[in-house]
């Protein structure tokens, strides 16, 4: 994927390919991010690519992938539009509740201005809409140095006061 931010840097050599739907052809040796139904079908047929991730649409919940988290390198959360905040909670559930340690990647329609909050919810890779937005997003990752609430990496401010 292009215009990807990962580990706080802009990445130019990301190998992952987003497989949008069931009909998209998967070339051999592709590191594929599959839609959940496709993942389940290929898994059933014992035909998963060697490197595999899964992506959740807006209606699919963290619990829906609970059983396969130890088998995927990557979970992508799709933002149908930037105002749809469900994935913030899904990311927290993946990290806090289900203990997922792999990559959580934001894909779809989100704003650079949201990556700070996303990171605090456990999303650690951001497939931005274009290069300019990726650069802006990079500069906005640490907008706030003080956080009142606890998040996936920090306890609440009141515990530090």
């Amino acid at each position: 994927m292009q215009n990807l931010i990962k580990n706080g840097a802009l990445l130019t050599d990301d190998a992952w390919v987003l497989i949008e739907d069931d009909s998209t052809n998967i070339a051999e040796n592709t590191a594929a991010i599959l839609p959940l139904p496709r993942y389940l079908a290929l898994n059933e047929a014992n035909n998963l690519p060697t490197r595999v991730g899964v992506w959740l649409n807006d209606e699919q919940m963290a619990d829906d992938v609970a059983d396969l988290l130890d088998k995927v390198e990557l979970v992508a959360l799709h933002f149908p539009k930037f105002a749809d905040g469900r994935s913030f909670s899904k990311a927290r559930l993946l990290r806090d509740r289900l203990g997922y340690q792999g990559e959580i990647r934001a894909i779809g329609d989100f704003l650079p201005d949201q990556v700070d909050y996303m990171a605090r919810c456990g999303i650690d890779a951001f497939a931005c809409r274009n290069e300019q937005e990726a650069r802006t997003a990079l500069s906005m990752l640490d907008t706030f140095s003080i956080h009142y609430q606890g998040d996936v990496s920090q306890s609440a401010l009141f515990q530090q006061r």
Partner: protein
Amino acid sequence: MYVYDSFDQKVVDERVAQFREQTERYLDGQLADDEFLPLRLQNGLYIQRHAPMLRIAVPYGLLSSKQLRKLAELTETYDKGYGHFTTRQNVQFNWPALEDVPDILAGLADVQMHAIQTSGNCIRNTTTDQFAGVLRDEIADPRPWCELIRQWSTLHPEFAFLPRKFKIAVNGSTNSDRAAVRFHDIGLELVRNDAGELGFKVFVGGGLGRTPLVGQEVRDFLPGIHLLSYLEAILRVYNLLGRRDNKYKARIKILVKALGVEAFRDKVEAEWAHLKDGPATLTEAEIARVAEHFVDPAYENLADADAILAQQKADHPGFAQWLDRNVYLHKKPGYAAVTLSIKKLGYAPGDCTADQMRSVAHLADQFSFGELRVSHEQNLILADVRQDQLLELWEAAKLVGFATANIGTLTDVICCPGGDYCALANAKSIPIAESIQAQFDDLDYLYDLGDLDLNISGCMNACGHHHIGNIGILGVDKKGEEFYQVSLGGDSGQNARVGKILGPSFNAEDIPAVVDKVIQVYTENRQPEEAFVDTVERLGLDPFKERVYAKSH
């Protein structure tokens, strides 16, 4: 009141810097209108009919005189020299230039204020009783809890893009509910359990707008230390399951209604089972740290000044009326809480000029430890006034026009800005308020009518809380013309009720006569000491309908 430490200050300073950069990017064409929208909204900035509107947070309605003077300065520098106090205890500037907003926010940050999350689909300013902390019947002071909620909700990373806006209110009084907690997304009522421990009764899913609903109880006792983790559980369930396909069905009240309160409660409790005793659990030390900011001011040890006041009342009949309507009992002997009416005939309810702000700031310094509160009825409160200084305060308030002794009466109207200012409104609301205030200008008559809330909204978004006015007036649009629907019997308090619509709507010019007829039915039928809302409840709407819609002969 709460005083920022270096952490709190840094949050608002960094927020100002962030918004300055976002505004520059927007003006530069790098951010589209619809992308800048949620960013500016979460900083209180709307684009309105005539100009942007900036809504400034007044956390749970509490202001210092210094902050009020700053508001006066900012509106003179960047706006038209006045501000508007809202029904959610905030302040709005109606005419700022977009380019100036970062500087306004910087000015606010200088006095520990901000506009964070005063609009947008996020957790808004938490509200409470304007007499919090000085009430005689208070279980505990709700303000420390409001401040804890303010800090927890401020820039919360998970809940900034909810299906819709989210409002929390806290009440600490046993006998009254001036915070209208049953008409909030979450309403919290301070209670003690049998063991004497402090906690909350939790209501969810109340609200006004297009679908007015009374909140339902989801928990009868939540220990204080678990407040934030429980709020997180509710918000997470809502964030994941609330409707996003239709903004008119996106509030949590619709989710609670669709699931049923039992199923909704089960989901919240299941989520909370994971969060309970987790990192969001408050510590006694943090509760104490915040509560220390709300200890009593340096009260003198006084006795109630009954004899002095009796003499002063005899000497000044106007003062007697003012004491009766605008002065409220105080927990501390010798003190009283005073409501300054900032509603004057010919002015929009809630509007306050820079000069008036400075006058009130001066009164707060002179009479009430330099602090004041904004009420959801859009008045200003001096909460800690010595009873033996009430006459002096009354004289001073009269000089600046804030001593109208009409609090809680028919002319103490709650009213949104309406079609004169707001892009959403179907109809004007301020001229309706004015016409009613003009019709009922006889104070003795108003006193005889007693407690009577009249609320006006210019559209069904219900910013003027028309559903819960004893008399509610709603502006509606019919083929491009403005009409007004009247409802009776709404109640925002412990007997929370949504008013019932009287019948077909009216022209603006008929409204004063309609209200007059409604009042006639009340005065002809009331029993001794019976309040308007109780008469409506007892009689039902029929006699009111008959009078109002009677054909003239």
